[in-house]
């Protein structure tokens, strides 16, 4: 097994040569995940803490875990882009926030579960993101504050192959 693996790896390295440079050219910009707490994400299990800055500017509503703005993911039913009424307050809150902060913009990232064809799911992911955008526009956000991206089924939140994973994957993420 390890011999096979070795050959696979060594050949992969050998053959990478020409294409790698080209991939490098377009190396993507890292998107910062605002939902993660950078202070507590150490990999070796040790926790680190920063002394809180009490002289800083007024804290943004976005960081308040009690605010409906803290909900950043909207989940969908199978093959559907209808926003459940459960998310009404979430969409309202984000729309209002965008209205009050006209210089802030948001990316709506549409996703789907793995079932069926990948390209169709890519289109479905966009349709979900678009549904969220349309509601946000009706509720006061401005079109130039919202950008849509669909990843279809290519970036699952959960890698499983069952309904509980699929539920987590049919989603639109609101990324500030």
């Amino acid at each position, binding site marked *: 097994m390890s011999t*096979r693996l070795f050959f696979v790896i060594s050949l992969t390295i050998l053959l990478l040569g020409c*294409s790698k440079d080209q991939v490098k050219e*377009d190396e993507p910009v890292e998107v910062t995940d605002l939902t993660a707490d950078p202070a507590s994400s150490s990999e070796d299990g040790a926790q680190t803490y920063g002394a809180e800055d009490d002289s800083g500017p007024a804290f943004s509503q976005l960081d308040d875990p009690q605010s409906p703005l803290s909900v950043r993911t909207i989940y969908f039913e199978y093959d559907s882009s209808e926003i459940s009424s459960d998310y009404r307050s979430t969409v309202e809150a984000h729309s209002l926030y965008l209205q009050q902060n006209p210089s802030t913009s948001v990316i709506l990232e549409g996703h789907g579960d793995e079932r069926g064809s990948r390209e169709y799911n890519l289109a479905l992911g966009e349709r979900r993101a678009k549904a969220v955008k349309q509601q946000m526009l009706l509720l006061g956000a401005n079109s130039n504050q919202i*950008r849509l991206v669909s990843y279809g089924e290519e970036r699952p939140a959960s890698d499983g*192959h069952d309904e509980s994973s699929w539920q987590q994957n049919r989603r639109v993420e609101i990324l500030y």
Partner: protein
Amino acid sequence: MKNFTKLFLICFLLPPFKSYAVLDIKITEGVEEPIPIAVAMFGWSQSSNVAPIDMSEIITNNLARSGRFNVMDAEDLPQNPSEFDAINFGDWRKLGMENIVIGNLTLTDSGAYDVSFRLVDIYRKKQIAGFRIPTKPNLLRRVAHQISDIIFEKLTGIEGAFNTRVAYITVKKNNKKKTHTLHIADADGYNAKVLVESPEPLLSPSWSNDGKKIAYVSFEGKNSSVFIQDISTGKRTQVSKFSGINSSPNWSPDDSHLALTLSKDGNTEIYIMNLLTKSLKRITQNNGIDTEPIWSPDGKKLAFTSDRSGSPQIYEVAIKNGKAKRLSFEGAYNARPRYSPDGKFITLVHSTGGSYHIALLNLTSGYINVLTDGPLDESPSFAPNGSMVIYATTGRRGGQLAAISVDGRIKQRLGLHQGDVREPAWGPFLK
């Protein structure tokens, strides 16, 4: 069975040419009455050295894997003749053998090779086919595939597709980081090459019809965009990066145009891009999802997936006038069409609810014939001879590739050593 596979791999790791299979292709079901054939060890001009390649082993594996032949084990052969006159017909007939392949590999003075082979009908004591093929050292495997193609066609009446390549995408997960890689390999799983590697998803590889380029979707710019990459040089160009979706590339039969799905005008629609001028022609006008365009073999139509009727179904549009008609009516879900090379069938992803299967839509009758068991089968693609469909299937070990003959009689598994494998695309015949 597992031990056999291991042995098989070791055999290929030993020869001086370090070729190995990245994909293990196993036949899981063959035809009921496979054609008996023996492939004798090829003669080799430099008997003091080891032959650079085992031609008979490659041919044996190709024929066995096709599911249409019963190939005699090398150790059971009563003799290994390399010339017609050396064949002991009586011995072979006693064993019930009907066909034998014999051949010679010769190193020429210039350092090139001559490969000759004969396919002989044992009962009629007659040569069915015989060729001499001069070639270069790096093309010996390809010659073995070409010989396999000739044998296959002579005995089954179906054009062989051994001398072809397959593109596919693998995903490896290391901690939380995923690596997406687009590969191509020979149709027997050997000779694998990496074309692109990216931390972001890769999708929808599509071969140009001359077999020299591959178009694909990459998310490396934090959005989908379409690239065309030259296979031999690795050079690529980004041909579509509009806002919204840029996806589903498919080449016109003459490779002058690319059909695409774009959502730049607000909704996913199908467009045709002139690759010379980069100008776009919009083909669909519809509020539903329109995607997955595929050129008909005659170049006059595009089949595509649309949910304009409420669920995804297959439609066909005449490029000339943009008139679309619905082709699939059975089942709640029909998507990702691919025409058969003769244009008489479409293979697609079919679901009646719950699980997803590969199916064939008969364009004459309109009936859908389900080929695979599911539960999560996708991305079907015809072999260029139209006899097999390769597809991706999700099982306990994640994504794997499989192939099935259009009559459902032959089944193959194409297993990757590690990681997920998906999005297979069978390339055209190699020239």
